């Protein structure tokens, strides 16, 4: 029988099921296959915070969305072309996101009266006309899986658990993907459980073969590889990229890395990943709480390590006191905030950008801290190195902002050439830096005296950074602490004029960082745009995709994206004033737009969304078009 094979430019697939159905794994495996095939891709895992949410309920639905294409894409996609729903709750929770004509592959096994009632279906949606505008394939995936693995004599529970592999096999067939990579993966994962391993492989193949032999699917699809610059690529999530960035920063600076951290969603992966890299001089310390983790980080920085801590918003709240100490002691460290929905415990597994003002200002006293934000999963690597550069060069704690979407989302990453990465010079103090007053008196009349004492707060005139001396180095003995330092000598000082000077100097040091930043790149292809869209962090993808849509509709629009939120780049004010209207989409209630208004007196328009999910390109495009039309009117 001949089959129709249609070629598509892009596809968005969403795998959805109960937590425990293995949807994240299914999505991840399909992603890996798409990555090896050479598609550009972007993913959005979306799962409940509970370890085991109530079975079969809508809050318990776990989904994984994958967008893959034969060109470069920026977002995980707004509306799935294909929904794989493993139970009634997964169907109900995701139906609203589907465009007309979408394909739904649904496992009918759990469509029992009780399960339907549980999610609020009074009648079976598969029987009624509710799904008429979709192309529905209602299949007993669980039943077919149990049949396919019967020979392995598993318990029914274990047999039914293989259904995610059956579904993966089927979808792989539908998009002409091989499953060999997943078979290898299963062989590794279940090496110690041969029957489970063989049953999963059998289910995977059975799903693929079902697609091949059934006549349910009249059409299958191909999505060709995306053209990309030559190089070695791998698929990477934001948390992995960020961890690698920290490892790389340790190597580039020649410093041992110490991560002091307490596990918190969605930052825990960084602790997991870095704990694997002892061979690169990385030490990980899982502290008893966030406060101890921050204390260890400050201590490691004092001791001459590249000190890092990784947490989320609630952890930053606990760490803020010790971050203040790090500001006062002027020690280099990177504080990673993988933001999640707040306030309080909030939405642990969902994304938000609402910690910006917290990391900017959430400390007592005037305690300026530089803020660096990553814009895409793979960009977390470069952002981590940049944060380490600022920290070490300017002797200051640096906030590195990621978020739940970047942390768990993945995309292809061109593995960089190590020789292209910037070196970071720790420039440790090696000897005394000042001629003491007593020797000046004694040696009156003589010139070019050798420095004979060490002042820990004698600053570099260019960067205003203080010297970094490893404790225990002879001749460099010094004290630091949380009380105000006297200018230069660093001893405790309560002098009014000294405090005024030190507060202003600490601020001036952070402001000086702007001098080291490259000029901003404004994406304004036509050069005649009236509207500038400015963003920071993970909104980069959705804003870029929305701007493409605005341009495709025949309008001009400019985009600029901030990596450095504190200090702001020197040329930003001029750029903002160049446009008639400035729009700032954020996943909070307008925190960056508030900073920009305060800093530049520019009437920045805020576009906000706090749904725990990234912006959809379609909706954002509609909002931007309103501004484009408003600005030209």
């Amino acid at each position, binding site marked *: 029988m001949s089959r129709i094979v249609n070629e598509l430019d892009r596809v968005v697939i969403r795998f959805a099921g109960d937590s425990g159905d293995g949807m994240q794994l299914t999505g991840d495996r399909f992603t890996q296959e798409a990555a090896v095939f050479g598609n550009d891709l972007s993913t959005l895992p979306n799962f409940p915070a509970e370890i085991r949410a*109530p*079975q*079969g309920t809508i809050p318990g639905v776990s989904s994984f969305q994958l967008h893959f294409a034969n060109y470069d894409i920026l977002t995980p996609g707004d509306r799935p072309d294909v929904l794989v729903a493993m139970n009634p709750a997964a169907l109900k929770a995701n139906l609203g996101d589907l465009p007309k004509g979408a394909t739904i592959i649904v496992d009918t096994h759990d469509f*029992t*009266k*009780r*399960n339907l009632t549980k999610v609020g279906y009074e009648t079976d949606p598969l029987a009624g006309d509710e799904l008429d505008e979709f192309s529905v394939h209602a299949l007993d995936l669980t039943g077919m899986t149990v049949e396919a693995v019967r020979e392995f004599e598993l*318990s*029914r*529970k274990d047999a039914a658990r293989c259904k995610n592999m059956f579904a993966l096999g089927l979808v792989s067939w539908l998009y002409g993907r091989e499953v060999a990579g997943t078979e290898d993966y299963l062989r590794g994962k279940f090496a110690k459980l041969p029957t489970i391993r063989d049953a999963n492989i059998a289910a995977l193949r059975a799903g693929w073969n079902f697609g091949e032999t059934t006549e349910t699917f009249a059409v299958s699809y191909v999505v060709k590889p995306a053209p990309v610059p030559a190089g070695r690529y791998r698929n990477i999530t934001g948390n992995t990229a960020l961890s690698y960035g920290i490892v790389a920063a340790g190597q580039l600076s020649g410093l041992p890395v110490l991560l002091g951290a307490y596990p918190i969603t969605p930052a825990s992966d960084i602790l997991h990943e870095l704990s694997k890299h002892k061979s690169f001089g990385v030490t990980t310390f899982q502290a008893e709480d966030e406060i101890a983790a921050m204390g260890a980080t400050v201590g490691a920085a004092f001791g001459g390590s590249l000190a890092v801590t990784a947490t989320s918003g609630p952890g930053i709240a606990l760490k803020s006191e010790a971050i203040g100490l790090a500001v006062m002691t002027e020690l280099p460290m990177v504080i990673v905030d993988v933001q999640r929905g707040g306030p309080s415990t909030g939405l642990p597994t969902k994304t938000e950008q609402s910690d910006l003002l917290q990391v900017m200002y959430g400390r007592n006293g005037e305690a300026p801290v530089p803020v660096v934000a990553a814009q895409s999963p793979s960009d977390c690597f470069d952002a981590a190195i940049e944060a380490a550069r600022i920290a070490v060069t300017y002797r200051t704690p640096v906030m590195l902002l990621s978020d739940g979407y970047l942390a768990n989302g993945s995309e292809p990453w061109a593995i960089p050439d190590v020789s292209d990465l910037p070196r970071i010079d720790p420039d440790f103090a090696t000897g005394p830096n000042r001629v003491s007053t007593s020797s000046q008196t004694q040696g009156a009349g003589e010139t070019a005296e050798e420095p004979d004492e060490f002042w820990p707060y004698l600053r570099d005139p260019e960067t205003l950074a203080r010297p970094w001396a490893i404790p225990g180095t002879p001749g460099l003995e010094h004290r630091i602490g949380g009380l105000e330092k006297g200018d230069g000598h660093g001893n405790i000082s309560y002098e009014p004029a000294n405090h005024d000077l030190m507060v202003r100097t600490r601020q001036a040091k952070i402001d000086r960082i702007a001098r080291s930043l490259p000029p901003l790149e404004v994406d304004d292809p036509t050069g005649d745009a009236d509207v500038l869209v400015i963003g920071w962090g993970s909104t980069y993808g959705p804003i870029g995709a929305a701007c493409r849509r605005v341009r495709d509709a025949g309008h001009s629009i400019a985009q600029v994206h901030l990596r450095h939120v504190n200090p702001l780049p020197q040329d930003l004010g001029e750029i903002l004033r160049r446009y008639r209207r400035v729009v700032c989409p954020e996943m909070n209630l307008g925190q960056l737009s508030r900073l920009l208004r305060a800093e530049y007196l520019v009437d920045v328009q805020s576009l906000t969304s706090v749904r725990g999910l990234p912006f959809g390109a379609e909706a954002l495009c509609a909002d931007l078009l309103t501004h484009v039309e408003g600005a030209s009117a």
Partner: protein
Amino acid sequence: MTYVINQDCVDVKDRACVDECPVDCIYEGPRMLYIQPDECVDCGACEPVCPQEAIFYEDDLPEASSGYLAINAQAFAAVGSPGGAGAYGLLAEDHPTVSALEKVN
């Protein structure tokens, strides 16, 4: 409070619930399974896995099987709380109401 198995289990005894129960409180009689109400910890793990939909939280028992709250409890009148179905083995006999039910197949 406890979960309760009703008449839909009779002569079926799928036992999917037995695998799920973390405290091993689901005992097998000759014709149906019974939940020991004193041992049940109300976790609800058994309820969604029953292919017969025969397990209910006691407050949610349908009218037609309201007697099964007592039937589950009375099935243990002779044995009390054995503290684990795996170690105890099969219950010697069903509750009289269950024994009296006509065999369907």
